[in-house]
């Protein structure tokens, strides 16, 4: 990837695509037939942009690649910012881009008047001498870094090929785009510190301002020399040299530099992030205070090399890097105890040897899957050998804060996510955090986040799983739901309008207005905990799952608007059959069916929810239905009793008949006696 980035780092040959222009926020017209190859980045093409309100304004737009997550948070922070060392980010947003026929993230920048300082890593350009370098390069770039640091963001695209002259005279330099791709994705390895360089380009993470200062140091060397001093090296060799000799020695080599620059570069290119110069040190340097140059502390060289994969390695960091690249081959020598022996005897680091020994013993004696235990053992051993390196697991190397963009890229390219899932489930990041020597609050936060991700992965329903991890890790990633088509939904408030827009286009009438991506997106973006509703969404009973969905949509519509969503309301209303059917009373059902079209016309999901999920009405229906059931059963029992006791009833009738006859006989006797008495006496 890094090689590809380097190869692409030159000006891209863009093919002019004829077609209608794109319009961003009804103001900026992006001319798709006027590409600007010289302003394109390795992963974003540049086009002429026009401001409808100020047609004389010189602008250009970068169209981001849909499969790479852009840095939306940084866009928000940089919009409108006018800093001396930064090309002004004028506007950003998702825009329908006719050449691709879909929505693309677009970033509009102020167009530099001058050219790019260096168009490719192999190109030589006009150098800036030591007298001008402070004013022209260091001061504006440091101001830019300061500005970014104050806003809590990093640039991660500081490189000579991303520097532009903002005037014809070549006096004013500014840094170009840093938001169209994941942090440091376009950075050639030479501009990255050893640790970040070890990570996959997409997983380098936002890092800290210290990474920007390192990149500034490398950029200063390039600008001072007017060329790339390590152009002859491939990335693997360059990383190896940086590990073995240190960044400063590798990049400066035998070049003769002024003493002031030596001090500055030793400070900025220090491979120990704790010792590397910070903004204050750089400020002091600029104000003229000179310090003794930092001496590079190179890792202790072993007395004898560790033979691995046909080569001999003399220091732990280099060996760890080689082992991370040859995962399968690395396990046997560690399990055989060769590494422990080497650490003990050749490196003479008994503490580290003991820790490795303990880790190996645990892997050998532990119960469970041996293969998995070996992988985790190697992961731990790599952390012990090189604690500053990224999380390394089976060839995937990521800084903890770069894991999200890596996952986003893999999922956008529909790649194999099994390795990333395995990393989360086996708690590989935890091993990395445990290997930290000092406490960092950010690390605790990230470790907690990874623990939560494991919890999400263990639930497979809608709203959880890998999709949830994706949105939890990338808080500015647009919703990837195929239901939304090409709509670019970054914030929760944009979701319902987007669904409302696609409601008319849906082909399957039974399709719910939700899928795994939308559910996960809601779960990650909602400020309140909606996991209970998401669990309800997975209920096998369609009525319950629809009610859970309506509940969430109703809350979002109530809180975030808009007031009327007729398309989405009609969509939900068309699916309300099971919820209406959940009412037992036919009269109530008819009532609801009569009421629904009125609410649909008003476009209120809140009202639909209130209508369908009226607890009082539901309880009443439930109780009355139970009463009706009891009535029915009582009638049934009585009918059965009447029909089954025929013999008994026959006997009873017979007896009653005979009794009646007896009574009639007696009555006749009495009446007759009375009549006779009356006749005889009177």
């Amino acid at each position, binding site marked *: 990837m890094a090689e590809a980035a380097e190869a692409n780092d030159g000006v891209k040959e863009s093919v002019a695509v004829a077609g209608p222009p794109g319009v961003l926020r009804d103001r900026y017209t992006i001319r798709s037939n006027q590409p600007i190859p010289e302003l394109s980045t390795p992963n974003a093409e540049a086009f002429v942009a026009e401001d409808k309100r100020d047609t004389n304004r010189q602008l250009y737009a970068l169209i981001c690649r849909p499969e790479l997550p852009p840095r939306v948070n940084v866009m928000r922070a940089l919009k409108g910012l006018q800093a001396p060392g930064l090309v002004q980010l004028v506007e950003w947003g998702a825009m329908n881009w006719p050449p691709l026929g879909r929505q693309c993230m677009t970033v509009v920048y102020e167009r530099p008047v001058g050219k790019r300082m260096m168009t490719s890593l192999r190109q030589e350009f006009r150098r800036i001498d030591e007298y001008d370098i402070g004013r022209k390069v260091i001061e504006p770039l440091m101001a830019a870094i300061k500005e970014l640091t104050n806003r809590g963001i990093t640039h991660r695209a500081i490189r000579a090929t991303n520097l532009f002259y903002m005037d014809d005279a070549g006096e004013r330099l500014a840094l170009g785009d840093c938001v169209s791709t994941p942090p440091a994705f376009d950075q050639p390895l030479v501009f990255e510190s050893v640790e970040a360089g070890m990570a996959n380009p997409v997983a380098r993470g936002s890092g800290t301002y210290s990474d920007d200062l390192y990149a500034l140091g490398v950029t200063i060397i390039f600008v001072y020399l007017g060329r790339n001093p390590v152009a002859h090296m491939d990335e693997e060799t360059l990383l190896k040299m940086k590990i073995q000799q240190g960044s400063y020695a590798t990049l400066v080599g035998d070049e003769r530099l002024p003493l002031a620059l030596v001090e500055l570069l030793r400070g900025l290119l220090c491979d120990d992030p704790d010792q590397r110069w910070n903004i204050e040190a750089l400020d002091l340097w600029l104000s003229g205070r000179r310090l003794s140059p930092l001496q590079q502390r190179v890792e202790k060289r072993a007395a004898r090399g560790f033979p691995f994969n046909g080569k001999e390695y003399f220091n732990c960091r280099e060996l760890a890097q080689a082992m991370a690249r040859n995962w399968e081959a690395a396990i046997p020598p560690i399990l055989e105890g060769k590494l422990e022996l080497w650490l003990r005897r050749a490196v003479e680091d008994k503490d580290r040897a003991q820790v490795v020994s303990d880790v190996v013993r645990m892997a050998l004696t532990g119960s469970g899957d041996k293969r998995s235990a070996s992988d985790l053992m190697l992961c731990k051993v790599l952390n012990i050998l090189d604690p500053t390196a990224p999380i390394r697991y089976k060839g995937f190397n990521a800084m903890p804060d770069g894991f999200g963009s890596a996952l986003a890229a893999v999922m956008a390219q529909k790649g194999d996510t099994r390795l990333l899932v395995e990393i989360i489930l086996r708690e590989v990041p935890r091993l990395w955090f445990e290997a930290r020597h000092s406490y960092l609050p950010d690390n605790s936060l990230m470790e907690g986040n990874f623990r939560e991700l494991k919890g999400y992965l263990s639930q497979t329903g809608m709203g959880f799983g890998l999709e949830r991890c994706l949105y939890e890790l990338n808080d500015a990633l647009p919703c990837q739901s195929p239901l939304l088509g090409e709509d670019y939904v970054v914030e929760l408030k944009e979701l319902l309008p987007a669904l409302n827009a696609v409601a008319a286009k849906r082909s399957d009438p039974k399709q719910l207005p939700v899928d795994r991506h939308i559910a996960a997106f809601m779960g990650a973006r909602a400020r309140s905990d909606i996991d209970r509703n998401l669990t309800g969404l997975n209920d096998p009973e369609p009525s319950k799952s629809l009610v859970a969905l309506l509940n969430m949509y109703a809350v979002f519509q109530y809180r975030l608007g808009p007031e009327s969503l007729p398309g989405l309301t009609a969509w939900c209303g068309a699916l309300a059959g099971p919820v209406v059917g959940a009412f037992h009373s036919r009269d109530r059902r008819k009532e609801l069916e009569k009421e629904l079209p009125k609410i649909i016309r008003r476009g209120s999901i809140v009202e639909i929810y209130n209508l369908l999920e009226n607890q009082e009405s539901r309880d009443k229906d439930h109780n009355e239905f139970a009463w009706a059931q009891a009535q029915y059963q009582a009638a049934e029992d009585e009918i059965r009793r009447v029909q089954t006791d025929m013999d008994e009833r026959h006997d009873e009738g017979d007896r009653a*008949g*005979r009794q009646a006859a007896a009574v009639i006989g007696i009555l006749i006797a009495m009446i007759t006696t009375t009549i006779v008495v009356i006749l005889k006496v009177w």
Partner: protein
Amino acid sequence: MAKKVSAVKQAQAQAAAKAKKGGGGGANKIVVLMILAALIPFSLPTVTLLFFCGLPTLGAWAGEKGKHKYAWLCVGGLNFAGIIPYLFDLWFGVHTLDEAFNMLSEASVLLWAYGASAIGWVLYMGTPPIVKSWLAFTNDRRVSALKSAQKRLIEEWGPEVTKKG
């Protein structure tokens, strides 16, 4: 309900036990029969008339089996209604045994007495089927009323109302 049934059973068992012992019930009957026997010399003509005219009643009493005997009451009632005018003639006329036999020798007396008994038999035979028909009719009406109530419930709540809650 179970307690009530057991109470009834207990009472029945006690009564049966008393009957076995030959207690108060049997003694009462003997006392009554002795009193009636003592009255015979004073009202022999009445007894004679009643005996001969009341033979259908005796027959009904003797002929009916089972615990509950109703035939003699029905037949006896009408039989008595047929005799009573002649009894009054005997009591308010000449109350002698000869007169009693004279009456018995008249065909009309026996015809009335036995004819009325025959009507009693007809009544006794005819009433139970009528009562049974009436009972069947009311049962049918009840079942149809219940079924129409069930139908109304199904119309209002759907077929699921037939399932037990």
